């Protein structure tokens, strides 16, 4: 579980995060949603320790991140898996080497043990034949699956995903979403996903927080987001024609 309390972050004069408090639960897919520029990525980077923040606290299972020593932070980070928006695969390594990388860095496993584990996670993301391909030879969806495999190969306690299905077609996006949810439930990982994709919200939004101008404007789940009267949320959720029609059908069905 990750608990965030009153988090503030500024860049010069720009106050980006204005006191966010929330809890990300273990074994659930926790979504952070909001418009572009609402502070989602900054919030995620603060959670990951890539950005320092001015006020507030972030605690991982009760350990406050900012109070940890450098060695403790390094140990904690070994428990974190991250799927970046652009996958961030190391382009000088093959897909197999990319997935093996965290094992090489943080474990003392033999080469055959590492290879077995890589085979297992690549099979888990349906890429068992992609070992020797270079990332540049893989499609966007494959790259995302490799990134997920790399993120989970070392059995992380926390999984962070920054817009995991951006740039993917709707069908592949659902595959990625479902894969993340399955892995989260299967391994009881605390998963935090940064997204502005309403399909993801409907698929895997077990808990959701909505950010607006650096503040938490709303929190709930995929079941409650369609029933809320919160105007900033409804503006965001029903901004597309498709979602407007879905809402209309929902209201008609209710009547």
């Amino acid at each position, binding site marked *: 579980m990750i608990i965030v309390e009153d988090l503030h972050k500024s860049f010069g004069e720009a106050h980006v995060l204005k006191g966010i408090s929330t809890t990300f639960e273990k074994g659930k897919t926790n979504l952070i949603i909001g418009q572009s520029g609402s502070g989602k990525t900054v919030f995620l980077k603060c959670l*990951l*320790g*890539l950005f320092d923040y001015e006020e507030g606290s972030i605690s991982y299972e009760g350990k406050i991140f900012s109070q940890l020593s*450098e060695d403790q*932070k*390094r*140990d*904690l*980070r*070994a428990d*974190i898996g*991250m799927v*970046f*928006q*652009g996958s*961030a*695969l*190391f*382009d*000088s390594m093959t897909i197999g080497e990319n997935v093996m990388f*965290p094992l*090489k*860095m*943080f474990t003392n496993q033999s080469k055959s043990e590492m290879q077995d584990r890589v085979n297992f996670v690549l099979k888990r993301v349906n890429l068992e034949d992609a070992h020797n391909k270079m990332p540049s030879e893989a499609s966007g969806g494959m790259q995302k699956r490799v990134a997920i495999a790399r993120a989970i190969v070392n059995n992380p306690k926390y999984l*962070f995903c920054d817009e995991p299905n951006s740039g993917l077609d709707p069908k592949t996006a659902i595959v990625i979403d479902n894969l993340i949810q399955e892995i989260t439930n299967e391994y009881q990982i605390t998963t935090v996903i940064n997204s502005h994709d309403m399909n993801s919200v409907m698929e895997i939004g077990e808990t959701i927080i909505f950010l607006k101008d650096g503040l938490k404007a709303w929190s709930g789940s995929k079941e409650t987001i369609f029933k809320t009267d919160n105007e900033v949320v409804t503006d965001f959720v029903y901004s597309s024609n498709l979602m407007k029609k879905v809402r209309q059908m929902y209201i008609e069905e209710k009547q």
Partner: protein
Amino acid sequence: MSYLHNIGAYFLMIAEMFRKPTKWSVMKTLIIKDIDDLIIGSLGIVAFILFFVGGVITIQTALNISNPLIPKYLVGFATRQSVILEFAPTFTSIIMAGKVGSFITSSIGTMRVTEQIDALEVMGINSINYLVFPKFIAMLLYPFVISIGMFLGILGGMAACVFGGYTTLDDYIVGIQTDFETFHIIYSFMKTFVFAFVLATIPSFYGYFMKGGALEVGKASTTSFVWTSVVIILLNYILTDILLG
């Protein structure tokens, strides 16, 4: 102010490079890869340039000696001194700032743009140590490249002499042996070690701390080349003044 900030950030990066070392089994692979990219990959161009530069120095020196009282062996002497003291260590380093420096800046810069450096940081890896330290170690072999360049520069001069008929081979050989001072070689290699450090770290700095997208990677490579060259030329003056002055 931004210059001072950059100088401070550069020295902090150097300090960070030696902290939290990457696992040796991984580092070993990175060093071997960087030796291949930065050292072995540069041998051809350094050999080509210095061979012909040696030839040109010989031709120009020979053509400018019109006084019959000046001995012909001076051609070999001038070629040796020019190649060992300046052309091999300094001139080659400026070219390497373009070749190796741009490669380092653009490869690290691309890793920054594509969030690969963030990925390393999230994993708890000291990304500066992981990326810059192997380049620094690889560049410790740079004097090896320069020594080959020195040999080929003098050989190029010899070839120009023999095939161009500017002086006899015997005169040239007498010239390259005349008034030889071992300290000149030591001075040259001392400069080369310093330039190797500059060539590994300044381009890494510009790549690591770049912001923006693909266009900025190109700009960072250009800036890195300019500053690496400026620092090499300034250090060349300072070291020459200290060691030979």
